[in-house]
């Protein structure tokens, strides 16, 4: 093997090893940090592993949004029109957070069944309904039309 070839071989091997390691680490980061979506029905059915961080999405129940006066400790309920989960969140709610509007929250389920959210997302217009929630409604369900308008 000529020196040039050996050098080239080393270079190629180095690159392959580097790419391999980077790929493996990225995959690990991906597997550790990917969060799954659950609707309230699946949460109530106990499909979530204890302590698992996940996304809970659905519609905010009308009349459920309240806080301890003078603080920003919010409580509201999220429903998919079959089951409902209570959510607790401390912080500033986004502009588009409204009752009877879609919301997606990140957090963990507590032993008492309350979802403790550390992030609340409502980035769309007020007619938005998370696609997962829309899908869980039966076809022809009028609530799907009320809540969702394709702009």
């Amino acid at each position, binding site marked *: 093997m000529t020196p040039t070839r050996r050098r080239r071989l080393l270079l190629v091997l180095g690159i392959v090893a580097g790419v391999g390691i980077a790929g493996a680490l990225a995959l690990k980061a*991906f597997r550790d940090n*990917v969060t*799954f*979506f659950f609707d309230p029905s699946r949460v109530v059915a106990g499909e979530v592993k204890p302590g698992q961080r996940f996304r809970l999405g659905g519609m905010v129940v009308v009349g459920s949004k309240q806080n301890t006066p003078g603080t*920003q400790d919010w409580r509201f309920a999220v429903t998919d029109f079959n089951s409902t989960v209570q959510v607790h969140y401390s912080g500033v709610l986004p*502009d588009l957070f409204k009752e009877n509007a879609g919301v997606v929250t990140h957090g963990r389920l507590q032993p008492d069944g309350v979802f403790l959210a550390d992030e609340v997302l409502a980035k769309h217009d*007020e007619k938005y309904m998370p*696609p997962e929630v829309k899908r869980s409604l039966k076809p022809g369900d009028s609530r799907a039309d009320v809540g969702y308008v394709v702009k």
Partner: protein
Amino acid sequence: MLPELGQFAMILALLLAMAQAAFGLVGPRFANSRYMGVVPFAVAGQFVFTCLALGILVAAFVNFDFSVRYVAENSNTALPLFYRIAAVWGAHEGSLLLWIFVLSLWTLAVTLRSRGLPPSFAARVLGVLGLLSMGFLLFTLATSNPFARLAPALPDGRDLNPVLQDFALAIHPPMLYTGYVGLSVAFAFACAAMIEGKLDQTWARWTRPWTTLAWAFLTAGIALGSWWAYYELGWGGFWFWDPVENASFMPWLVATALIHSLAVTDKRGLFKSWTLLLAISGFSLSLLGTFLVRSGVLVSVHSFAADPARGVFILVFLIAVIGGALVLYAWRAPLLKSQAGFELTSRESFLLFNNILLIIAAAVVFGGTMAPMLSDALGLGALSVGPQYFNPSFMLPILPLLGLLSVGMHAGWKRGNLSRSRRAILGTLALAMALALAITFGAYDYEAVLMPVGVALALWIALSALVDPVDRLRRRLSLSAGVVGMSVAHFGLAMLVLGITVVSSATTERDIALTPGQSVALGKYVFRFEGIKSLEGPNYGGVQGKVTVLHEGEAAHVLLPEKRNYWVQQSTMTEAAIGARWDRDLFVAMGEDVGKGAWSLRLQVRPMIQFVWLGAIIMMLGGITAGVDRRYRLAQEALVRKTDAGTPSVSAA
């Protein structure tokens, strides 16, 4: 009447695009100079009619023509003139027209600047650009006509989405599109070279200034978008790994790899296949970005449109463009041969590492962006990928990239004897490390292990970028615009890395409910909530809060964050208030009335965030400086003379 004229102008532009594509691609095949002579006129005509169409849409917005559906949906009588004009590209249809306009602008620029190119090559480049223009015009006319009428006309419009009523919005999309579409020029040059079958380094040299300029605009466009999200959306950060941000970031990463790989192909005739593939994939990712944002596949703050028919059209277009280019590549690949070798410490191998690491980074972003869609499409459940994945995985290729950059800047072509530059390399490294330790422990309390590392890397790059130009000046050697541009852009990157490192590791933030008169301390700053008053705007009402920020007992800033209610869309908008100084931002966003006279507030102190935007601006200026280097034009003319004289081999300029 006028809107129909606009649509007619688009149809004429489509016909001219067809002529441009047909004559541009067929003319050189038969060496028919009369056919090829038609192409520049088709380009000019297409430009005129595209301008006309865009002008008519602007006029419809300015004159409140609510009989046009697009205007009715995105404007309102109370909307100020500036935003009425910006609203032209505020939604799907108009932004497509903007895309077409920008494409015809680039095409016109290529036509005017290609007089030094061999006529057959220039005609093929314009032919490929004509095909792309055809695709977009057809798409717009068939699925997203901005001039479609609304019967009966609305008495008043539904108003522009309030988040888009902002100064940055007026310039973010045009800038971003100029970058996106500019990559089509590199794509067209690559395709023309493959059709021609003349795959030496000449095409790379001709492409370089265009690609560099497109890259500069893309950089500016992404930075503007990030700035807009920072202060208008009130999310309180500059990058969220939002799918739409990623959609613009992936082509940027590939374009960055491309401008470096083009340098190697131009100077040394190496990496030829690789460069072709990068040119193809860079533009393909721009198209993919459009597809992602505009088809409604992505659920994101940016995706205002959702229409499956559009998605299918763009998907077919995407497959045709990528597939066509790859077939062309497969056909011509046997022509690609590189003879020259290079050593491990040469500039070539540093640029090879640059490319590999950038492509890994692009793959990391691609994987994270596409995984949720793929999982959803395959019925594996809805999953989401957030910063917890992106941040560490992206850092993995980027940290070594930044480290190698400082060394690579000192390496010469081919031989690359680094021992000569050892003093410069080690000296700058030592200085950078000392400064980094002083900054992390002195100015900021040590926050995270990545902070001194990132700061040291940034300073090392900044110092290394200065070594070469300073050395040349001292030795009274000439300094080409290309070298200056490169150094400036790398210096800008250093500022960007510095800003990102410090702001990510030393930001302090707090969401808190305060009653008027109450204060809260955040680091060295004390935020005092003074109270609220009501607010009246042209098309909104709301409240304005007042927060005094004290630093060492003295008032440093009075911040006036707003909570607006836009009447027409009945939507609430947060206008964050930012107290900016060169080394930090004080950020206040209003939450809501939480009872007992208290308001919830989001307070943040963000050190050195200015460096993020500043770095991006410097990078853009560097790109523009390098892109307009006269050397390229002279080289182009010299090349043509040589080729005409029958000597195809080219010496490095």
